[in-house]
């Protein structure tokens, strides 16, 4: 098929163009939307967060409840649960992390591609919960950086949904420059939900 240029709509009468008439929207009409690359990419990222459920304990059962049809995580574009860290954008740590589990969690987090986000679901992942014991990690932020903390033991499915919504807002606020130019992770502002 040969390319036929779309005829331009009849523009205003020739003459010295005013500054606000030179934009591509003016030239192309409503066939295009302009945006910044940042906003476009964040829009895509925000609405297709693929979670990696690092479920180890009771909270994982509530995550199953969140995915199931009653609460339906797919309404927020995050239902495509991936069990490979390479394919996931957000890792949801649902359950107690023990010292035996900790190196694995770190390894999996390291295997995820940037950009990546972390949701710490439930009291155990957030602070160790009521297991203040020789074998439990008192909060996964000892091991990996966390974006969203969810309260509850276990959190209700609504709290999981709230966490996804908050994460989407956070993704929107993120800038590409820091991570691209410096190769470092963007500064993480921590959000708590469900309390």
């Amino acid at each position, binding site marked *: 098929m040969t390319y036929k240029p779309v005829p331009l709509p009849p523009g205003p009468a020739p003459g010295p163009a005013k500054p606000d008439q030179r934009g591509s929207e003016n030239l192309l009409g409503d066939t295009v939307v302009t945006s910044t690359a940042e906003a476009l990419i964040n829009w895509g990222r925000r609405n297709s967060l693929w979670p990696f459920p*690092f*479920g*180890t*304990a*009771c909270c*994982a*059962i*509530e995550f*199953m*409840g969140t995915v*199931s*049809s*009653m609460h339906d995580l797919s309404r927020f574009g995050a239902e495509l649960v991936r*069990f490979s860290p390479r394919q996931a954008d957000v890792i949801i740590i649902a*359950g*107690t992390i*023990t010292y*035996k*589990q900790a190196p*694995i969690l770190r390894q*999996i987090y390291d295997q995820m591609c940037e950009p990546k986000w972390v949701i710490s679901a439930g009291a*155990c992942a957030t602070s160790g919960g*009521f*297991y*203040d*014991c*020789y*074998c*439990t990690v008192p909060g996964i932020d000892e091991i990996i950086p966390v974006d969203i903390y969810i309260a509850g*033991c*276990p959190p*209700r499915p609504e709290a999981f949904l709230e966490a996804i919504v908050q994460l989407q807002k956070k993704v929107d606020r993120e800038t590409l420059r820091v991570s691209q130019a410096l190769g470092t992770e963007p500064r993480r502002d921590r959000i708590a939900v469900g309390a």
Partner: protein
Amino acid sequence: MKALSPAGELVELMTINVGPSHPATHGALRAHCALDGETIIAAACEMGYLHRGFEKMIEQGTYQMVLPYTDRLNYCSAMMNNIAFCKAVERMFGVTVPERCVRVRVVLLELSRIIDHLVCVCANLVDLGALTNFWYFFNVREEVYKIWEKLCGARLTNTVTRIGGMYRDVYPAFADDVLAVLPLVESAVAEVRGLVEKNRIFIDRTKDIGVVTADQAIAWGWTGPCLRASGVDRDLRKDEPYYGYDEYTFDTVIGQTGDTYDRIMVRMIEMLESASICRQALAKLKPGPINTSDARLSLPSRSQVYHDMEALINSFKLIYEGVRPPAGECYDALEAANGELGFLIVSDGGTNPYRIKVRPPCFTQWAAFGPMMQGAMLSDVAAALGSINIIAGELDR
């Protein structure tokens, strides 16, 4: 790795690590397998990834403070653990709970068994790729959660029993709600059975996979549905009846070959039997006190506390110190969803448990898993693992 087989052949074995972060291992189990082609020659299993010190933590608090921890043993059926623990402590006191409490506990036990089997079967089917059944079963589970919420406010970790009774009597429409949920259970089971029972793919992936014979299952100490799937007709509810289970008519469900198919089907049909027990128990539910009147366990009523010195002191003692079972060692068990859930309690007569050893039902199943998978294909691991229903919370404690 290069290895010489028992027959003296030189074989290049491939070792592959399954878990602990693998969808079929549910986050906390690990099996290291040596493969010849796709056949598992040897499997070394490991556990402990969710070992969160249950037995150490509960020595730090009183007996009542153990109850929330028991919720998190088998978190798919939290109430069962509550009731099992309370039953063991009540046995130490020599206290029997009032009849209404017994009936309510039976209803809760059987509903918990249903929702445990729902999760087990649907997770197993998801591991096999049959995702639809997950939606069907989880809808029913959500309906049961609604009852739990009305009962105590929590969905998963309920802590609804107390030593010597219940946290409170059930709400007025409890029986109606349960009776409304039971047909949903039955229709969901019927739907899922219709989808899988004669399904060629399902049968191919589960029939004669992970076979455990009756003698093997007994030797490994298996109990519960997995033992029954191997054709051993043993169920604590029948063999050592507690809570008046001998008054209810129900069948134990047994399989023949002890393969994955049987284990799934035994669970599926046990749900129907449990539903029938629920109905019978509700029919016998009569008004009455829900907590024992034994002053060592139950708080006196408010009016007594305000007018009677002894009741006031008793109330103080129970709240600030907790219950004190007589010194000694006692083991008590009940038929949980996974098998025999037992508590060996060592009491020194004080307010804190001296030592509690849990007898988790799935420990025996997971210990047998390595030998069970020898000679199977790697893809069978997921199917067989789901069918023995390992719950990491009670396995690792």
